[in-house]
């Protein structure tokens, strides 16, 4: 069943002592998507991931992976998961290859050929027989991705995978994740601080704040569609007069004067009416364009610019 969600969280709550780290999370991750976890520092992204992979007990609610309860059917559920939680910490005193052997042995059916295949995939062939101690952060990240992919998981969970990668590495990772979802039907969950990254990478995002779910939506909806208010830049003179006129129009959600022009927040359908109104007042209009609001702006808007939760 293609539509069955690969991961489902139902009223998941995590408490440590009196503190509630995660509060009543309910959402589903559809199969075959790249799904983003977004939230300021301390929002609870890593905590949620830890519960998903069984590293932390769930205080209330349940998490199912491929229909298997992570708590009561741990071994069947985790079999389908490959993950990096926070930093990709590997055994430093072993070589990259020995690390892969180590994790390959823990899951039945991973062959030597598969190990070589994964090494080629993350482009570590040249350094795989070096001790991990000598790896750069980006190389460790690659090795982390390699160990997560060894057993051909259906769900790949990567906590801040771009951390430590150079731009080329990030691009490679992105292309690679796309490739995995398209050709192998793998579902990927990524959390990241690089919001612009998420915008390029993800199909949907869940926004977390203070351990609560703020929103889950396809990425397009965050950036803005027809029914949603967007920001438009209008170059008009005299600007002062235009500002006053626009403010008076019912339905305009906001207007602001900048050096470039007036930044107007309104629904797309309203734009012709606004322009017509300005022209009737003999205001000269030199240009109008939609300012594509990045996820980052949207995110800051939602979270009120707050950076640490």
């Amino acid at each position, binding site marked *: 069943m293609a539509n069955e969600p690969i991961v489902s969280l139902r009223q998941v709550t995590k408490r*440590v002592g009196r503190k509630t780290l995660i509060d009543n999370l309910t959402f589903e991750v559809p199969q075959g998507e790249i799904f983003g976890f977004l939230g300021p520092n301390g929002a609870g992204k890593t905590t949620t991931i*830890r519960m998903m*992979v*069984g*590293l*932390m*007990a769930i205080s209330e609610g349940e998490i199912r992976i491929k229909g298997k309860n992570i708590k009561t059917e*741990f*071994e*069947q559920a*985790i*079999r389908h*998961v490959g*993950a990096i*939680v*926070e*930093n990709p*910490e*590997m*055994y*430093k*005193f*072993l070589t990259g290859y*020995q690390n892969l*052997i*180590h*994790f390959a*042995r*823990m*899951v039945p059916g991973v062959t030597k050929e598969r190990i070589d295949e994964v090494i080629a995939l993350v482009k570590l062939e040249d350094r795989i027989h070096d001790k991990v101690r000598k790896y750069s952060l980006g190389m460790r990240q690659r090795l982390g991705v390699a*160990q997560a992919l060894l057993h051909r998981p259906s769900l790949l969970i990567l906590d801040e995978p771009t951390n430590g990668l150079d731009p080329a590495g990030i691009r490679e990772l992105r292309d690679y994740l796309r490739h995995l979802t398209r050709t192998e039907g793998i579902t990927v969950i990524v959390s990241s601080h690089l919001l612009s990254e998420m915008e390029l990478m993800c199909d949907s995002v869940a926004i977390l704040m203070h351990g609560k779910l703020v929103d889950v939506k396809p990425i397009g909806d965050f950036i803005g569609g027809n029914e949603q208010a967007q920001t438009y830049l209008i170059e008009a003179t005299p600007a002062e007069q235009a500002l006053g006129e626009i403010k008076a129009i019912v339905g305009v959600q906001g207007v602001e004067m900048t050096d470039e022009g007036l930044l107007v927040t309104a629904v797309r359908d309203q734009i012709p009416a606004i322009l017509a109104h300005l022209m009737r007042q003999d205001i000269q209009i030199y240009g109008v364009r939609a300012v594509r609001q990045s996820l980052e702006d949207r995110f800051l808007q939602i979270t009120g610019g707050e950076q640490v939760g």
Partner: protein
Amino acid sequence: MVNLIRNENMKLYRRWRTWVMVGFMIAAVLVGSFVEWYYDSSDASWRNDVIEQQQDMQAVLSDPELDPESQVYYKDQLAIIDYRLTHDIRPEPGTMWDGINGSASLFILITLFTVIVAGDSLAGEFTAGTIKLLLIRPASRLKILISKYLSMILFGFGLLIILFVVSVLVNGLLYQFKAIDLPLLTVNGEGVVVEKSMVANLWQTYLLNGVSTIIFVTMAFMISSAFRSSAMAIGISIFSLFAGTIVLELLQRYEWSKYLLFANLDLSQYLSGRPYQDGMTLSFSVIVLALYFILFNLVSWLVFTRRDVAA
């Protein structure tokens, strides 16, 4: 499970630290045996020494005020000397067995090294953060714990084999393997001298020591899993390894001290017939040790399988 143990072994033997321990073990046996051999003054004329001993003991025994316990002891020793002289069986000094038996005291190194490795095996994964990758595989936490435990026991056993082989080889070479079939003479319950195999006796000593090694390893594991700190696990275990006997001496006058772990660790106290407190028996100690063993393992298991991993 086999794969898990192979993993643990790989992590253990791919570290130079482990081989330093092995090297140190070998060096200690070599040096100890060599020093003992070098200062060994006994020669082929063991009869004269034994006869001299015999006379000394007879003199002591003739003292009417000697307590009954010592009387039994000296009588037994004299019986053994008689047996030696009539059956032409020399005492161990001046043979390879003296060195080999002496090397058995290096067993403490096995305990020490195994405890260090055990203390780090679990806690080290938490410190390094690798525990996260270890626990998100289709292997239960219990299996992982057991595989670590077994690999530690295997390591300790490996060190024991090294101790045995190296001490037999080096002492054999130093003494040209003379008297290799020398029996051990002891007096049984009925006061009759019996011949025992020297090797069997050696392994009996090893096994009795092994009991305390296993208990200390279990303890190191428990502390590792509770506090997730290698330093703490190794520190506390080694401290109790050395401080245990001192504490015991201070507490000997209290009867309850016989329930302490350390009072029961040394099972050879029953071979020599001088238990830590009167009324303690071998089965008492075995039961007490078994209870501690179960308790320690239960704590490790409960804590390790339940606690959140936030490393």
